[in-house]
């Protein structure tokens, strides 16, 4: 299988605690792969290693055949790995439109321009509006981001990620802290993304959602890769069930 993003023996430890332990895996192009596992299994840490917020103690991260282990988060974004955060992470005192436009601008490679052609600027704004429409947030484009409801902020978060137009999307619990009524809208958005032929890596606790959306799953447990495979295989995997129910006595 052709992997767009791969990890080799990826390990990170803090103090004496090994948070991610020798994970070797790959993420197939244009598929959605979810990472599941009990609390403290190292899922978010693993994400941070993929996006560059953390540097591994050992091991490598490869993206499209390039070793990106030592690249900074902003460099990885420019290469085409975008991420959303578990905690809502937007620019609170900028408008919704401005939030997205900043992402569009980065994607367009406009980093240091001072004087600017207004037509081109208009284009960026149009693109931002299109994306806001896609996540059903266009009617709020003039609001300051801090005045959105929680669910709307999550949508904005995803809109910014879309604007980056990254090939690989890392979604860290996109429904965290949402009320139940808000969840289906987000699922729709993710489903839409899947159809656009992007590679998506998802951390999510809402199990029904994971099983429904994922092409494949990987299970982390105590920082190690316990199992990977299709949702069916994982469901049938005894070890995984045990890990969840807590009877598991692994070798360590």
């Amino acid at each position: 299988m052709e992997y767009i993003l791969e990890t080799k023996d990826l390990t990170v430890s803090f103090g004496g605690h090994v948070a991610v332990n020798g994970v070797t895996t790959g993420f197939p192009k244009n598929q959605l792969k979810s990472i599941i596992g009990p609390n403290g299994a190292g899922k978010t840490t693993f994400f941070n290693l993929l996006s560059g917020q953390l540097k591994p103690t050992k091991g490598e991260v490869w993206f499209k055949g390039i070793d990106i282990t030592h690249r900074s988060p902003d460099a990885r974004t420019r290469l085409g790995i975008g991420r959303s955060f578990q905690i809502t992470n937007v620019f609170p005192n900028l408008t919704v439109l401005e939030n997205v436009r900043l992402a569009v601008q980065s994607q367009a490679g406009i980093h240091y321009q001072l004087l600017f052609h207004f037509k081109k600027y208009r284009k960026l704004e149009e693109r931002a509006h299109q994306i806001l429409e896609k996540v059903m947030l266009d009617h709020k484009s003039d609001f300051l981001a801090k005045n959105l409801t929680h669910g709307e902020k999550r949508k904005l978060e995803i809109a910014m990620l879309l604007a980056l137009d990254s090939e690989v999307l890392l979604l860290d619990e996109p429904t965290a802290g949402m009320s139940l009524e808000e969840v289906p809208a987000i699922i729709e958005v993710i489903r839409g993304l899947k159809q656009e032929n992007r590679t998506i890596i998802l951390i999510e606790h809402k199990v029904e959602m994971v099983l429904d959306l994922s092409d494949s799953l990987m299970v982390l447990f105590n920082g190690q890769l316990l199992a990977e495979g299709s949702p069916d295989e994982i469901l049938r995997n005894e070890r995984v069930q045990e890990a969840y129910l807590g009877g598991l006595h692994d070798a360590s």
Partner: protein
Amino acid sequence: MLLKVEQIETYIDQHHILQGVSLEVPAGQVTVLLGRNGAGKTTTLRTIMGMTPPAKGQIIFQGEAIHQLPTHAIAQKGIGYVPEDQGIFADLTVEENIKVAMHKEDAETKDRLAWILDLFPDLKSFWERKAGNLSGGQKQMLSLSRALVQNNPLILVDEPSKGLAPVVVDKVVDALKEIKDHTTILLVEQNFAMASALGDRFYILDNGQTQLSGSMQELAQNEELKRKWLGIA
């Protein structure tokens, strides 16, 4: 009833984390709080401790409303807390960690300390070491000791098995079994084997709400319930 939590709702920033949690902790028992990741178990404990005060609902401890008190006052009422990450003071020695928690140095406290050190002989041998250098299991024991040395009628213990090797988990279970005879425990645990070995009653949390409660024995025998609420399917 030692502790009564009634319909609490808690926000963290704007996240509506607890959306109505109610539970009762009878004295002398181990009450277990179960539920999947992100269900709101840790937040429930932190809300009881006053670290993330509830926006709605009330918390009654020994007949007294405590949900508006600051954390230190709640602790002084007699609730001990053993957090998920153990909350060890890494730069202090084991001895000093325990001393921070000892507000009295009377004979009774000294007796209790002696009992604790019998319970966790490891701590005695690392008495003057920096707590940051302890293993995960030892940190867990130290954290428990701090809550015990205060003679709290209730202790809240958050996932003591997390990140520990199975052998160590067994040790912690044994210790908690003995501790159980001395104080009431509200335990958050994802490791079902551990929960069922210790628990008398259980509550299941999901989506920030208490969904189900009953005796631990019943739950242990009901595979379907277990899978539905605790497994991945």
